[in-house]
């Protein structure tokens, strides 16, 4: 019995190691891996393996994050889980100093924050020209266009053929939208 338990533990440890290899290293043009790829590599208990990995990553301030193709999934089906994209993200947050060292100017961060907050207030969709108008109140016009293209290229924002912007996969993966909106609305109010 004890031998069988040890065998199962070893197999699980191997699967967690495999999950690290799959999730940490770049495999595709877009970051992250699909649920069905993880199932293929880790077996039918792939979700339990991810739970174990998530617990092991906790002390290192990292977490296993999941993003569905459809934005508002609450109780996912098996197909939605298989199609979801899985990532490793920072569990906590970064400060301005660290953000600068990873290549983000304060203007770029603020521009992205405004674009994301504006889109959230518009239910996730708005014409590009409206977002540019808001950004131009505090950033020079040439920089606004450049930044918008950068946010699109990095996967934070998307733009359809008719110039309508939406929140893309990366915003859903990396940004705690509720917290951002709460912080913006609470600005200047003294905590009670």
């Amino acid at each position: 019995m004890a031998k069988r338990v040890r065998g199962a533990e070893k197999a699980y440890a191997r699967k967690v190691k495999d999950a690290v290899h799959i999730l940490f290293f770049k495999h595709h043009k877009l970051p992250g891996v699909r649920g069905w790829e993880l199932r293929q590599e880790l077996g039918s208990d792939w979700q339990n393996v991810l739970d174990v990995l998530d617990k092991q990553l906790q002390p290192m301030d990292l977490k296993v994050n999941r993003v569905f193709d459809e934005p508002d999934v609450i109780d996912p089906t098996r197909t939605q889980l298989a199609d979801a994209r899985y990532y490793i993200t920072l569990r906590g947050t970064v400060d301005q100093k660290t953000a600068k060292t990873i290549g983000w100017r304060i203007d770029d961060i603020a521009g992205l924050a405004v674009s994301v907050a504006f889109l959230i207030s518009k239910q996730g969709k708005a014409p590009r020209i409206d977002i540019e108008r808001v950004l131009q109140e505090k950033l020079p016009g040439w920089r606004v266009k450049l930044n918008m293209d950068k946010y699109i290229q990095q996967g934070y924002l998307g733009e359809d053929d008719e110039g309508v912007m939406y929140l893309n996969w990366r915003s859903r993966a990396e940004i705690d939208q509720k917290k951002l909106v709460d912080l913006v609305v609470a600005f200047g109010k003294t905590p009670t």
Partner: protein
Amino acid sequence: MAQSELESVINLCKMVQSGKIEPFDIDFDYVITIIRRHYPNIKFVEDFCLDAQAIKELSSVLERQNQWIAHQSSTLYKDPFMLSQSLMRMDIGAIADAFLKSWHPLLELEQISAKTLASSLGYWGGLIPFDERWTEPDVAVRDTEYASRAEASALGYLPEEGFMDVIEAFWKELGDRVGPGGSIEYWEWIGADTYEDTVYRSFLTVFLVSYGYANMNTDRLLEETMIFHNSEPQQDTGRSKVSLPMMVDYEEWRLWRNE
């Protein structure tokens, strides 16, 4: 007049889709009365299409109104005016700070492993140098000659067995698998280990059906296609043949294989 009014309705609904106006800026009751008013006067197919499009766009507006209510009742909802006022009050540093407190950037590493290095070295070793690769082909003018059927087959220009032999062998395989007169789900039948083999089996299946060795039935509601084995090939009744365009999507094959 009717046409231009319906076009206006469609454009108005499209503005909701693109986020230019809010979903509840549209008075559903008023718009539906416009569509209803024109419906009895429709005579041409084009007008029917326009009417159908107007209904479709209006139903999308209803969907957006529904999403809007769901969004407003969610914890994410904040009054857009209040939000934009807050954003305007904040300086760039404060906005950046708020963002950084809610940002969890993702991690991904690029790494060359010893295994990739070894296989890359193998590839480099096998790569023919440019001066060898780009040499002019040695082409000489030759007179046309004759080849026997066996020689053409040996060169791969002619299949070794006739096409009907291939079809009959495929029919036999179907019979062995499902029994005389039996049936099988389309993907279960054509699916193979490689995508190329799957496409080939789909190609042969189309001929199997066209030549009366099997029948195909598609339930469009359930999106299910079944292949039925014919115990005896059905004779050509002289009726015109129907082409069966069958899509063998790579993604679908991959999903099927992973199931």
